């Protein structure tokens, strides 16, 4: 007869409820780790207080009753004060939520308070998920769901166990369950647990995740007007970032950060250039050691006003044939300027955005830097090193003269004093030999000139002295980084009468071999140049940084060039998970839904076809097998196989099942007597130095006769049939005495 399993008492259920409630509070408040809202102090305080209340559940009883009456007004005051001082709604609500969770975590809870913990926790996690679109959200919501379901189950069991009992007055100040220890609860949980129920619970939870995934795929999607943006209620804060005023060293600083800045999916790999340049920002004005987007250019290019929408029409034309889509997953905290390879036919956002487009510059800027990952899809993008700009060619023609405004607009302004201008002119003469060169030739020679004089280094040394720092650096032989090289090139080109500008963004990236996408990290940040070629009325890209040849050799495309960038490291695995999250979850829309259905349909049809082919092959093989000659040997083999199979089935039915049942009956799992006997046996084994299996032969001379008898009895209790057991308590008493005796013997032998 199966042994009756014990049950948790009402007090133990209360204790379990307290534990799960505390865990939920901690799980919720730990969202602060990736939610970029200033609540670290509150989070730390909540963690410490809730953990203290978990370890010592009697602690909350020490709070005087009047403190509970003061809590509500204090929380309201805190919220109003927070809102007034910081003037940000969402951070104030988040801090209020954490404060309420703190209070619920350290006070004894009724049922409604328990439900409040779940609601508050869920709010915090969902807000963090919406704001950050982080993969951590997926892990956290899963753990939170599992804990919340267990919590609700225990609440329900507590209610059931307490149902119908008369309630006599207010609950006691110190609940009775607080005196129970956690170790005892753990032991009781182990006693009560049934592995079959636990496995079923696990399977059901996996089922919940599966069903929710199916629901996620199946929920019909239709776009309503976007009117809820939680991001609006939170202040934006950049960790790193490109902005329109870059001092020397800024890009290099970004390069220290190895986190992912951008992930790119492309529908046609053959279109990926071997060295992609992800343009973000154009800087035209040089002044006092820094390049920036001049106000004049900003006014001219971005003056069309801010637009609202989810689609941007570009100037490029879509090539014929199957369109190529580039899907960008642009991480938060990088910039409000979108990385692009070049001119495009169309950019489509997942959500409506406020943006400005500088068509001539090939730059798209969002109104604010996004707080969460921003996904956008680009169609018909030209990844070549040429950026046609007919308007600039016209401007060059129409704006003669040398007034500062014209110079700025023509991107010919140097921003250095006369002495430095003279130095620059000398350098240009050295490069060109005093001859006017075509743009390509000038670029080649200037790059070579710079590479001869300077090495590449992330730790440059700009010599001190009077005049412009960039000119000083050019005049020296010091090593430099990409910004110095790009800036030098621009000054030299402008001195030579060529319109030039600095472009910042990312260069290169790695090809993730698991998720088949480009991963660009902040460490790929780069600065390069564009020189205007009046002959072709286009800006030509040139990268003067040594080792970064942007010439025609780098313009190769296709899968072969990706092999050099292939990344199959563990970091790539993690990134592939992130990309999966972005592709399949965050960026899932109606089109994805249709594509998924289409893929499922195709997979079903394909698998059906394969199955039919396999079946027909099997039938053919069977026919061939039947048609082959029936020799005596073959018949004997078949009969032998049939007999062997029948024998196996018979043996299992006769002996195997019984043996299995016997094995399960004798299994020591869970039986406290068998477990205790095992513990005593292990202790005696250690003391006598004999292994458990070798005891039978060794103990006669290793241990004393009484100890040997005790070991015999313990082994019977551990492994023997229950009917043959001696009195367990008496055996354990004797075992205790034997252990002491063996210890004494050991000490005597050692001395």
């Amino acid at each position: 007869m199966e042994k009756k399993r014990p049950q948790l008492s009402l007090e133990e259920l209360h204790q379990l409820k307290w534990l799960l409630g505390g865990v939920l509070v901690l799980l919720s408040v730990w969202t602060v780790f990736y939610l970029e809202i200033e609540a670290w102090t509150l989070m730390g305080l909540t963690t410490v207080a809730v953990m203290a209340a978990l370890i010592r559940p009697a602690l909350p009883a020490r709070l005087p009753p009047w403190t509970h009456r003061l809590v509500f007004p204090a929380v309201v005051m805190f919220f109003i004060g927070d809102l007034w001082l910081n003037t940000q709604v969402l951070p104030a609500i988040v801090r209020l939520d954490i404060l309420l969770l703190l209070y619920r975590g350290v006070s004894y809870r009724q049922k409604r308070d328990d439900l409040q913990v779940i609601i508050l926790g869920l709010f915090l996690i969902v807000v963090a998920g919406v704001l950050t679109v982080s993969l951590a959200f997926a892990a956290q919501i899963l753990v939170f769901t599992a804990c919340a379901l267990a919590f609700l189950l225990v609440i329900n069991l507590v209610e059931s166990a307490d149902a119908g009992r008369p309630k006599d007055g207010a609950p006691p100040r110190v609940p009775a369950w607080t005196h129970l220890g956690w170790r005892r609860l753990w032991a009781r949980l182990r006693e009560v647990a049934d592995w079959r129920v636990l496995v079923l619970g696990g399977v059901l939870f996996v089922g919940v995740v599966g069903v929710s995934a199916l629901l996620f795929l199946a929920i019909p999607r239709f776009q309503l007007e976007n009117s809820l943006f939680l991001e609006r209620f939170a202040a934006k804060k950049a960790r790193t970032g490109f902005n329109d005023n870059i001092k020397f060293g800024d890009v290099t600083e970004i390069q220290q950060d190895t986190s992912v800045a951008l992930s790119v999916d492309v529908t046609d790999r053959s279109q990926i250039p071997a060295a992609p340049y992800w343009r973000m920002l154009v800087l035209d004005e040089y002044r006092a050691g820094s390049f920036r987007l001049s106000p004049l250019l900003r006014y001219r290019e971005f003056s069309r006003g801010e637009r609202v929408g989810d689609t941007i029409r570009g100037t490029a034309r879509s090539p014929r044939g199957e369109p190529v889509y580039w899907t960008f997953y642009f991480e938060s905290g990088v910039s409000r300027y979108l990385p692009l390879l070049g001119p495009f036919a169309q950019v489509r956002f997942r959500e409506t955005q406020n943006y400005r487009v500088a068509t001539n510059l090939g730059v798209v800027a969002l109104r604010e830097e996004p707080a969460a990952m921003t996904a956008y899809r680009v169609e018909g993008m030209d990844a070549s090193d040429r950026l046609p700009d007919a308007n600039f060619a016209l401007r060059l023609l129409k704006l003669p003269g040398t007034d500062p405004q014209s110079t700025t607009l023509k991107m010919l302004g140097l921003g250095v004093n006369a002495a430095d201008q003279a130095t620059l002119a000398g350098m240009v003469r050295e490069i060109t030999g005093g001859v006017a060169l075509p743009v390509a030739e000038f670029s080649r020679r200037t790059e070579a000139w710079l590479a001869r004089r300077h090495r590449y280094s992330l730790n440059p040394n700009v010599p001190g002295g009077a005049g412009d720092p960039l000119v000083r650096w050019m005049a020296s032989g010091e090593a430099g980084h990409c910004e110095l090289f790009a800036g030098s090139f621009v000054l030299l080109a402008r001195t030579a009468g060529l319109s030039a500008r600095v472009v910042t963004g990312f260069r290169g990236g790695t090809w993730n071999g698991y998720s088949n996408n480009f991963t660009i990290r902040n460490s790929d940040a780069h600065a390069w140049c564009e020189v205007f070629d009046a002959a072709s009325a286009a800006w030509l890209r040139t990268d003067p940084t040594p080792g970064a040849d942007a010439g025609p050799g780098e313009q190769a495309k296709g899968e072969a060039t990706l092999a050099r960038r292939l990344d199959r490291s563990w970091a790539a695995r993690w990134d592939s998970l992130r990309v999966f999250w972005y592709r399949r979850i965050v960026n899932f829309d109606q089109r994805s839904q249709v594509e998924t259905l289409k893929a499922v349909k195709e997979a079903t049809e394909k698998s059906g076809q394969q199955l039919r082919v396999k079946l027909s092959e099997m039938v053919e093989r069977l026919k061939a097998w039947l048609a082959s000659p029936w020799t005596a040997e073959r018949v004997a083999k078949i009969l032998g196989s049939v007999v062997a199979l029948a024998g196996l089935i018979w043996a299992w039915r006769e002996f195997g099942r019984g043996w299995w049942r016997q094995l399960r009956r004798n299994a020591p799992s869970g039986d406290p007597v068998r477990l205790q006997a095992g513990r005593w046996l292990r202790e005696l084994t250690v003391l006598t130095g004999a292994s458990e299996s070798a005891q039978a032969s060794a103990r006669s001379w290793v241990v004393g006769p009484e100890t040997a008898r005790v070991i015999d009895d313990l082994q019977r209790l551990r492994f023997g049939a229950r009917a043959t057991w001696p009195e367990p308590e008496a055996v354990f008493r004797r075992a205790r005495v034997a252990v002491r005796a063996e210890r004494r013997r050991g000490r005597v032998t050692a001395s």
Partner: protein
Amino acid sequence: MSAAPAALTSPQVAPPSGPAAGWSGPGARSKRRRFTWNALLWALIFPQRGQRILPTLSGTLLIALSLGIGMAAYNSANNILFITLSLLLACLILSGVLSWLNFRGVAWRLELAPPLRAGHEAVVGLGLRNGKPFLPTYGLWFELLARPVEEGPPPPPKSTITGNDLGDLDVRAAWKQAALAEQRGQLFLRERLDPRGELRLDWLFKPTKRGRLSVELAGIGSQFPFGFLRKHLTTELREERFVWPAPVDYRRLAEAGARRTAGGERAARAGQGLDLLALRRYASGDSHRLIHWKASARSRTLLVRQFAAETTEGFSIWLRTDAAIWTRPEQFERLVSFCATLAEDLFRAGQLTALAIDDEAPLPVRRVRDLEQLLDRLAIIQPRKELGPGHAVLAAEPKAKRNVLTFAPDGAHAVAAYVDGEKTATT
């Protein structure tokens, strides 16, 4: 004299035997319906007959939360919100699956312990059985209802009830009265019902008046597993029992006991007398001295002697229920209780021989079973509207018979018992 209830057992109310006897519910063995996909889909969409599912406070909260998150998800096309919505809906589905699993394999039956007496506490046992192989069952509650069964033929069925049908009946008052006569109770499954385990829950209640009583399992409810939904099943499990009249205290007035005939009487029931009543087969535990060796040798079967009981004096009770005599209902109730108490006391003393009701033939009372049938009859007896032939004579009748106990009103409330016309006891 105090009339304590006798500890009688009745064969009519013995607990049902056999593995499936009396069991009801999802786990009771019944003919399985043929599986069809249509039936399954329909069952998923529409609750089965007798099932009611209502959201609880936390369930309402969950649904409101799902609606809110759903609206926000559609409003912002944010997939994080869609994920949260999917998880919430999946949790709701899980709740339904676990609730179904919790009820699955569970069977219940009513176990009424006899006898039921008006004014005395009765125990209604609710047997529970979990037929699942390894899953326990938690958190059920059971609603029990005890209500008197109306005597008389049931009203003819009508599809429509009109005002004329009701006559002067005040429906609300009738409803209130019926509700007052009902007794409701709740039983809670506080512990875990182990797989393949059985459990019994007891409901104590006090029947207020004699008659036929219907004890029903009105419903089974559960909020398992997460308390989102309150699932309620109705059942048709119903047991009917007689509620015997309440015992009353009475006072003996005189030594008007039964007249003893010389030599006593031999009663035609088994007892410890000297006269041989019959022979029967030997049963384990019989004294060897009782073996009738000659008869055993002749029949080649061990036979033992059975002696007749010997009574010294015996009483017959004649209960007359004419409405003309018993004009006050409470006095009539007192009469029935007095009669039942006397019958039990006399039987316990071995002095009750027969009981007659009105003009019916006297019923001999030899065994416990006879007494129980008698009490069952007294449980439902009502005043007789039509007068019987002997209604004019009360205490003096019948003079020709000996040791006949009759009853008559004693003042406005009390009832007196007469033996052969002599007042013997009163309540």
